[in-house]
């Protein structure tokens, strides 16, 4: 990312430290993620661990955590989003793991920050899973798919308030399942080896974000280690974590869009049809131009809103689709790596929740009127 762009993204205040962190993220993406993109897409555990190592070493996995800066970098939100974009341009799955790890720390629910390991936030938003029963209490026997939870050392579950439309407050654990009370955003954290839960592979692999392997999480007797706001940051931490997840998804999407544009431009400059590079054909030029327009018009840093995130994700999906089209038949083949971008963007359109279900979040931001 160029210094000029960094300055623009940060409203003109691109300090040397910020530039350095964003550049470092870019180097990690180019050196550690891109060369492994295909195998990461396949969810190879060893490759994910290898890619994760340098990220954890630099401290990107907890750069937003309370108390960050003591041993690793402490990033402001905008710089974090720019770093996430860089990582997303390398591999969106790994970028999502970084996002989920930071979101888990932001929630404040992790009992001991020194515990280390990779944490993953598991957000239960308005539509994952859908409320199947009337009234309370509602038992969640399992959460599936829990994006990024497979292979994590611990998870933090955040249940968005009001998702069951109930008035009761608080969450309790009963007989082997989480009982959600609705009405309040609640937080619970558990380590994978605690015996309180089982994290197994999801029944099916996700369409994209291969490195953010999804799990089926089932809960043993005892449920959450913590519930409600007691001893944790409670509602505000949980809400901040959820917000970060949504907004961070937009930043990852911008990385995908950027990578799609880079690949399409390079291919279009070299591929010859009709005696000229296909970049000379209007049909291709139009697609390349639209990709550039979308990239320029969907900044995340400095906006940090769910609405902007939705825009960035939709733009990434459109740009990735256009990139596949520019590649023609080769774009459909896994070897070129461009169809992966389309799949990654598609999952971001669905996770943490599809745009059409985000009305309440947009109302909270004041973007749309609240319902009566």
């Amino acid at each position: 990312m160029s210094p000029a762009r960094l300055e623009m993204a940060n409203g003109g205040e691109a300090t040397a430290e910020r530039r350095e962190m964003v550049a470092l993220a870019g180097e990690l993406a180019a050196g550690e993620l891109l060369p492994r993109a295909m195998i990461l897409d396949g969810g190879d555990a060893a490759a994910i661990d290898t890619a994760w190592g340098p990220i954890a070493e630099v401290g990107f996995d907890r750069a937003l955590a309370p108390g960050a800066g003591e041993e690793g970098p402490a990033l402001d939100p905008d710089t974090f989003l720019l770093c996430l974009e860089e990582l997303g341009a390398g591999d969106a799955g790994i970028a999502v793991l970084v996002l989920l790890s930071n979101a888990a720390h932001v929630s404040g629910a992790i009992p001991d920050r020194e515990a280390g390991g990779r944490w993953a936030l598991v957000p239960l938003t308005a539509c994952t899973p859908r409320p199947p029963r009337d009234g309370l209490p509602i038992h969640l026997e399992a959460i599936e798919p829990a994006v990024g939870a497979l292979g994590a050392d611990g998870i933090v579950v955040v249940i968005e308030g009001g998702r069951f439309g109930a008035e009761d407050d608080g969450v309790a654990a009963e007989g082997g399942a989480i009982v959600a009370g609705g009405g309040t955003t609640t937080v619970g954290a558990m380590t994978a080896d605690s015996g309180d839960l089982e994290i197994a592979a999801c029944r099916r692999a996700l369409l994209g974000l291969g490195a953010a392997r999804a799990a089926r999480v089932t809960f043993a007797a005892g449920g959450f280690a913590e519930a409600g706001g007691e001893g944790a940051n409670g509602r505000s931490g949980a809400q901040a974590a959820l917000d970060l997840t949504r907004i961070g998804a937009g930043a990852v999407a911008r990385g995908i869009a950027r990578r799609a544009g880079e690949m399409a431009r390079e291919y279009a400059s070299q591929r010859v049809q009709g005696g000229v590079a296909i970049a000379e054909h209007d049909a291709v030029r139009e697609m390349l131009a639209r990709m550039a327009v979308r990239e320029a018009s969907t900044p995340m840093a400095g906006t940090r809103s769910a609405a902007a995130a939705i825009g960035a994700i939709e733009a990434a999906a459109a740009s990735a689709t256009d990139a596949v089209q520019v590649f023609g038949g080769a774009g459909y083949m896994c070897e070129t790596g461009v169809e992966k971008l389309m799949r990654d963007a598609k999952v971001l359109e669905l996770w943490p929740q599809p745009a059409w279900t985000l009305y309440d979040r947009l109302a909270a931001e004041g973007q749309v009127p609240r319902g009566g």
Partner: protein
Amino acid sequence: MSGLNGHSPPSLRHAFPRLGGLERFKPGYVEGLEELQLRSRRFAEESVKPRALELDKRGGADPTAFDWDVVREGAAAGMLDLCVPSEVGGLGGLAVETAIAMEELCAACPGIANIFGAHGLGVAPLLTAGPSQWGVLEELVRGNQRGEPPLMGFAITEPDAGTDMEDLDLMRDARIVSRATPVAGGYRLSGTKRFISNGSVARYLSVMMPIDRKRPVETCTCFLVDTAAEGFEVSRIEHKMGQRACHAAELTFDGVFVPSERVVGRPGDAAGITLLVLAASRPPVGAIATGTARGALDRLLEWLHTDPAAAGLADRQYVQLRLASMAERIHLARQAYMDAATELDVAALGGTLGHPLVRALGAMPRSLRRRKRVRQAMASQGSRQATVRVMRQTTSDRAITRALGLSSMAKAYGADVAVETTSEALEIVGLTGSAIGAELDKLWRDARLTQIYEGTNQLNRLEVYRALVDREQMPILPETEELAA
């Protein structure tokens, strides 16, 4: 409407009200199409749908995996004989029949359907050569009857020439590497073809190569290649985003010998013939896309009405509006492909298929047709010239160009509908570990290819412009000797 609220997919007369007028085309025509639709649907439900997810998963892990059982079952259901002439034991259909079958199969699995679609594409050039290639077509039918179905494919695309090979103007500057060299008794083919559907499993391939690379349009020739021939090799099978049940292969030709009698039509006619074949094949691709979209909508509706996890969603206005939009676009895509298919089969080629000479050949007893001298006569240069004359007398470049324009429109529109519908279906269901998620993921991946193959949507739309807006007349039909002189 298709499949709404538990209703079965539409009957043919319900889906295409104009079909009633086609009864005049030939007696029993529409009845025959209705029977084909039901037969195709039965095969799709019983043999294709149960295998769809498993074959997709298998193909994802190992691109070389291929299921011959479903091909055999499809052969028994008549899916490989759709456009083989009735004179040699096939159904005798063309674009309409293929399209109807494709929609039904694709509602179950576009990948499996493409095996049969690509086979039809490989057969199509042979039809333009009149009776000269009926011997091979009979062989295909006999193989189907024995339960050992031989597959075909159509090899056009090269590593450096994709879109170029499907447009006469672009072809002039195309970087074509392959070529056919005249030798005693025939030709030797050299070069590489890429992304060829069925390429790795075909018994025969219709292969396009120029005799003179500096004049590709004038010398492009279609060859019927026996894949058992020396020098033919499958160099790779691609790992694709979707439609994994059907292989896309890279093929290498290293001096593969093709005897003169296996030149399809006449040397140098293939560039225009390719456009005729595309005019016939693009409506079925529109149908492939329509079927894919319908498959997504049908599965979504079933999930909305039966899965407890979907409770309350169908009451949401957003969902209702999206469902209505999907139904609307599927209906229009269906009209587009059927309109294009009937334009070709009835308006453009109806006279050709009903020509007295064609009917006379059809009336000839098979035992007589199999005699060596009769076969030689049918494969002779004289027969090929006669075929060209019949085509010139009974249709025109203008008619075929118009049909190509409508076909390209149907393909491009249908492909966009498939991608939009599958995408929206995913957004309604959201991220889930259950089976509906897997099915819709797969259909979304399968749908994407429809915007790329058979010419990219951009190329198709340029052909719509040329044929229907600019009203250009493309030089598609081969020239008679008199015209060429």
